[in-house]
């Protein structure tokens, strides 16, 4: 990706014209808490998480496994698995609070979703064309032939050659990258205002990943869509997003404009992650974060990051709330704002 211009915004992802900072967020999740229950134990996957996406922006939601990022994203459209129990929280879309029915109403029509594994995310026994056209018939009341024609146009739009032939193909006849494009076509079919992408490029080769990210950018600028990009890959977020939200152990630990957070992280976990990512062009020893994420089936007392944190102190026995550090930046750390959480992280 090309170097980031010095405008304080990410490349190719600048806030699209027509949207100002003061607008109501397009979609907001307020104080969500989700537990998973089975007979033996309950796991608190998400605790008190609030995130919002503004119209036209790209929000990067970053976290490792167990951080709760996927559950958070699924909650935005009410797609939680049946074993999940929502213990609190609400979703607001364009200022209106939505219940389960309301959430179902925005799915596909106002919010499109792209998943991680394209081959398993398509119905294996249905043709691609039918699957793409389904949303069109449902939400835009198109006839069968009109919806298939539009599906072919969408396939061409996402760069799939011979779109009319491809309408009749089955998912297993596509390669990974092409199928991911087809999924994008399916998600944008009804021109939603928001596209949620859950690890869309993790299973793809890096050159294909670059193509898909470029596709996102071009589709976004054509439709003026917002993008919620969920990933564990900080570099992808750095090159694509406007804002970043970092999650750890089911909580939001840091939030802010992507350049600021990456250049000067306030939460020690963010700092640790940044130091642990291998960077092309540098062979310095990676500074890893010692230990492991906490076991969420046991209650977390105090700050969840404490066992692995190099700068923790006695006050960390109490769980730090997410507080504003400066401007548009928040962090859930008692030490935030009082000097950088640099220091020496355990090497290895």
């Amino acid at each position: 990706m090309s170097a980031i211009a010095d405008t304080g915004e990410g490349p190719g992802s600048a806030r699209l014209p027509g949207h100002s900072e003061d607008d109501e967020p397009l979609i907001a999740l307020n104080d969500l808490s989700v537990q998973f229950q089975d007979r033996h134990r309950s796991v608190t996957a998400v605790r008190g998480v609030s995130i919002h996406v503004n119209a036209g922006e790209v929000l990067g939601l970053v976290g490792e496994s167990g951080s709760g990022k996927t559950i958070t994203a699924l909650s935005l459209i009410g797609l939680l698995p049946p074993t999940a129990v929502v213990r609190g929280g609400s979703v607001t879309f364009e200022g209106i609070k939505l219940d389960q029915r309301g959430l179902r109403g925005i799915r596909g029509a106002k919010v499109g979703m792209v998943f991680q594994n394209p081959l398993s995310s398509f119905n294996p026994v249905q043709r691609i064309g039918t699957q793409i056209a389904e949303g069109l018939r449902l939400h835009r009341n198109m006839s069968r032939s009109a919806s298939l024609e539009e599906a072919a146009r969408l396939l061409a739009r996402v760069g799939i050659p011979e779109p009319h032939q491809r309408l009749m193909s089955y998912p297993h006849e596509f390669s990974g990258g092409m199928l991911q494009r087809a999924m994008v076509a399916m998600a944008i079919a009804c021109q939603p205002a928001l596209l949620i992408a859950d690890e869309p490029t993790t299973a793809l080769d890096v050159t294909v990943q670059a193509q898909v990210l470029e596709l996102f950018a071009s589709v976004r600028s054509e439709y003026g869509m917002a993008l919620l990009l969920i990933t564990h890959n900080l570099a992808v977020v750095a090159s694509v997003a406007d804002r970043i939200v970092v999650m750890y152990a089911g909580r939001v630990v840091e939030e802010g404009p992507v350049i600021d957070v990456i250049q000067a992280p306030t939460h020690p976990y963010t700092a640790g992650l940044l130091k642990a990512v291998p960077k092309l062009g540098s062979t310095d020893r990676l500074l890893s974060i010692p230990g492991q994420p906490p076991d969420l089936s046991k209650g977390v007392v105090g700050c969840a990051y404490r066992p692995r944190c190099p700068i923790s102190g006695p006050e960390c026995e109490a769980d730090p709330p997410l507080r504003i550090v400066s401007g548009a930046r928040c962090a859930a750390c008692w030490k935030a704002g009082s000097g950088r959480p640099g220091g020496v992280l355990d090497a290895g």
Partner: protein
Amino acid sequence: MPADLESTILTVDRASVSFEARGGRTGQKRVLRALDDVSLQVRGGESLGVVGESGCGKTTLARAIVGLQELSEGTISVRGDGEHGGRRRGDVQMVFQDPYSSLDPHQRVRSIIAESIIAAGLVPKHEVRERIASLLDLVGLHGDLSDRRATELSGGQRQRVGIARALASEPRIIVCDEPVTALDVSIQAQIINLLTDLRRRLGLTYVFIAHDVAVVEQVADRVMVMYLGRVVETGTVRSVFESPSHPYTAALVSAVPTLGAEPASGHSAIRLVGEPPSPVAPPSGCRFHPRCWLRDVLDRPPICSEEDPHLSGLVNGSEQRAACHFFSETQSALLAGTVGPPQAVDE
């Protein structure tokens, strides 16, 4: 590091692995070349990285080196303490990609490691327990984890167990097949550091396979770039990634997203069109030519679709070699900024 290097201990000479695919609508037989005429040499104590994307044959190569895959042509030889100076059993070990499926989920850790120790036959029975403990220590795991079953361990812990298992037979060469791909970023860094430390401490030789270029740069001294079963570029990690001579390598490196600093390649992104063709039907001449941006820049010289380039001789005197008819043009084309938007892929 170069001062400690011994001479070559692993030689792969013109190795090929071909599969026969029968069937399809016409019922014809087709040949799938997973590996095509691949040669490499690894010196003792060195770490060779192998990068490439799906279908490039790197996993097939890994399996062939370890002995899990027989060759259709060519040879792989290890210079060691075995018969006729060849490989001893257990000399070459593998660390697998998926820590969740490469360990028997219900086996206890100590039993997993014990199996490998006993199979290697290097240690008398009464010393096995001690050996398990020292191996666990070596990979940074607590001794009391040896009672746990694999299902109770995290991804990072499992991968450490996998490494301990590989070390049990005192190998000289370890083939790592994407060992950190399935791990979280923070754990990935731990395992990368562990592998680097172990190499230094034990004088191991690595063949490190990954699709993540940055990870390979971290772990390897030299690197080999593969495309569609062939080697397209080799050289030191620094020279290959900083100044690639093969247009595919250049595209690969430029596609890697960075954290916001200047991209390592110093130029704008090269966008490849389409995906690698199927290994059953490789393009004529140079396999990369239908997607090659350099070919477009040079106005599509006919040799690209006619003749398959061999790995060229030395470039810059740094042992860097590329399989491209115009490898010397790559850097200048990149720096001149003449890489335009990608042309359509021609058939």
